[in-house]
């Protein structure tokens, strides 16, 4: 078993990337992603990590370098946030459609304007449909463990898709947490060497990235959809394998004090830790409330989610992104769509909170629950707007 150390989550994540013996890192600095990349640059410069560190001139090029290196058969990593993701978005879609394995650490940050370096989920929701495996993390240990998991899933021949790890900016990236490190032996046991299906090499000639006429485009997109759905069991399998190694069991849908709960809070990311405190307090005052932490965003664990939500009377979704002018915010829309056909579907309320780094306390969550239950709004409700 590895050693437990108090360390900044970003540094720990970079160490994990190093332990994975990554071959190519290409990234462009943006707050709050910077510490991850800086530490990787250090590891390369000091010779602790034998990798090519490509200090690109933009995020667009970062993702393009990643596509090139993954296609060449190299283990590939990048990290970014908000504006950086927006700039690379064009290529993010291409990476998955071309089935190029790679791992992205996304330090979630609000999209401009107004410019904000602080945390919400508007960046990741912008590329919701990019076809990547997308996971959210609740705490530092999970972020650290996710790095090994992400490479394992991404490079698995049954998956061969890029994986995005969502890590709340500052709230997670910049905090110091006690993290149990993996040993080299554990990594060796868990993560096999990358053996790509096709690579760019003169010894075996392939054409990658051919263009699709209307008679093939739909099939190509269907193939991506099927591949992403099929990655679900592999994601779970890799978590189960990790549990055997570390004793930490991750699930696509995590339940917290949901026994006999009439009301459920559903959220993704670090806000779940806050919500669990609110649940504790409300349980103490006798309320039948619990929480659902949705860890696997893509592919959506539909069966587990339906099972987790179907018994409740009310579900309050904490949405950390806004869909201006839309039927509802991204996470709520998804949950509502999923539950629409269920005979005993709960009421589903949307609470948009924590935009652009606005603090959300356990008390805020209690107020949001009470507001939703009293107000019974059908559209989104933007919590905490002043003035």
């Amino acid at each position, binding site marked *: 078993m590895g050693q437990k150390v108090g360390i900044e989550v970003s540094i720990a994540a970079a160490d994990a990337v190093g332990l994975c013996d990554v*071959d190519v890192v290409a990234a462009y600095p943006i707050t709050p992603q910077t510490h991850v990349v800086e530490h990787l640059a250090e590891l390369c410069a000091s010779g602790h990590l034998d990798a090519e560190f490509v200090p690109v001139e933009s995020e667009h090029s970062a993702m393009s370098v990643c596509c*090139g290196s993954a296609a*060449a058969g*190299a283990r590939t990593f990048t990290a970014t946030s908000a504006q950086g993701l927006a700039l690379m978005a064009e*290529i993010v879609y291409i990476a998955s459609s071309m*089935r190029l394995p790679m791992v992205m650490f996304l330090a979630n940050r609000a999209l401009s304007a107004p410019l904000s370096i602080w945390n919400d989920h508007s960046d990741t929701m912008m590329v919701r449909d990019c076809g990547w495996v997308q996971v959210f993390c609740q705490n530092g240990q999970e972020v650290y463990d996710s790095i090994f998991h992400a490479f394992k899933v991404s490079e698995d021949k049954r998956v061969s898709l890029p994986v995005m790890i969502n890590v709340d900016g500052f709230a997670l990236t910049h905090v110091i947490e006690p993290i149990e490190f993996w040993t080299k032996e554990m990594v060796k046991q868990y993560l096999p060497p990358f053996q790509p299906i096709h690579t760019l090499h003169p*010894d075996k000639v392939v054409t*990658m990235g*051919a263009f699709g006429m209307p008679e093939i485009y739909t099939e190509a997109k269907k193939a991506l959809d099927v591949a992403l759905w099929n990655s679900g069991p592999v994601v779970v399998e890799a978590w189960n394998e990790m549990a055997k190694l570390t004793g930490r069991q991750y699930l696509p849908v995590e339940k917290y004090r949901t026994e006999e709960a009439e009301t459920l809070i559903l959220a993704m990311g670090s806000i779940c830790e806050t919500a669990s405190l609110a649940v504790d307090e409300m349980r103490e005052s006798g309320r039948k409330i619990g929480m659902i932490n949705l860890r696997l965003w893509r592919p959506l664990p539909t069966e587990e989610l339906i099972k987790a939500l179907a018994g409740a009377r009310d579900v309050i979704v904490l949405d950390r992104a806004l869909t201006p002018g839309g039927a509802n915010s991204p996470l709520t829309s998804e949950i509502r769509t999923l539950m629409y056909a269920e005979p005993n579907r709960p009421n589903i309320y949307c609470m948009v909170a924590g935009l652009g780094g606005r603090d959300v306390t356990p008390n805020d969550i209690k107020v949001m629950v009470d507001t939703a239950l009293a107000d019974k709004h059908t559209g989104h409700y933007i919590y905490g707007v002043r003035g």
Partner: protein
Amino acid sequence: MASAVSDVSITETKMAETEKKKVIKPLKNFPMEEYINSGHRACQGCAEVLAVRHVLKAIGPDVVMAMATGCMEIISSPYPYTSWTVPWIHIAFENAAAVASGIEAGLKALKRKKRIPDKEITILAMGGDGGTTDIGFQALSGMMERGHKIIYVCVDNEAYMNTGIQRSSSTPFGATTTTSPAGRVAPAGQMTWKKDMVAIAAAHGIPYTATACPTFYNDLQKKILKAKEVDGPSYIHILSVCPTGWRVPLHKAIEYGQLAVDTGVFPLYEVENGVWKLNRKPKELKPVVEYFKGQGRYRHLDDTLTAEIQDKITARWNRLVKMCEADKED
């Protein structure tokens, strides 16, 4: 020619049976191998695809190629077909230099870690003038500045041809395109002067950069071979006559390439480790009108505009000659 594999965007190619023959020095022995097969969908008389053909002949089979969106990508890779008998990847329009940077970095790491055999592989990036001088400019600059060992080739047909002949920053002054039409307000059509890419590349301090034209295919192949040998980035800017976009007869591409060079409109020169050298110096330049004659894109030019262009071309030529002479004396 090609067979589909699991992923729709990947097309597997049977190796050309000519595989692994040594590339022989041009001039005496013209390489007979083909690395872009016929059957592609380029227009008749296209000298851009001819440029591609010569570049690949010069490099030989041990190459990995990243290509930008544009004519050459579209004509060669309609899934499930492919014209390429070398490993080839297309990701997007503006990033061939970055994709190639990734390939180079990836192969370098894998070789160093002994996970693939230590074989010499040339990394080639290629884009049109739009994909290079406009939208891909930043990625190219990054690639050159970081010092990747990559040959970047710009196949310059002086407009965005793939999308229907729109102007680029490489479209010459006086040429009409669909977005630089000639009219009362803009009598010349394109009212700006062609971006000087080789000077920009040279300013990055890269070891080798040059202009070329498939009409002078020996010169072109020699330059590619030179680029292949240098330890670092190289940039080759190839004038590629496009009969469709220039509105010239289909059989005239080679001739117009010759005229572009011999009028001084597109001089052949190279910059090797900072030293400028003319590769073809006609005793006397032909007047530019000879080059303009018969090109639909220049048909609107009157004597005043032609004289203005002639003056500029002469001045530029003289400056280039002077720079090369000065470097010769050093």
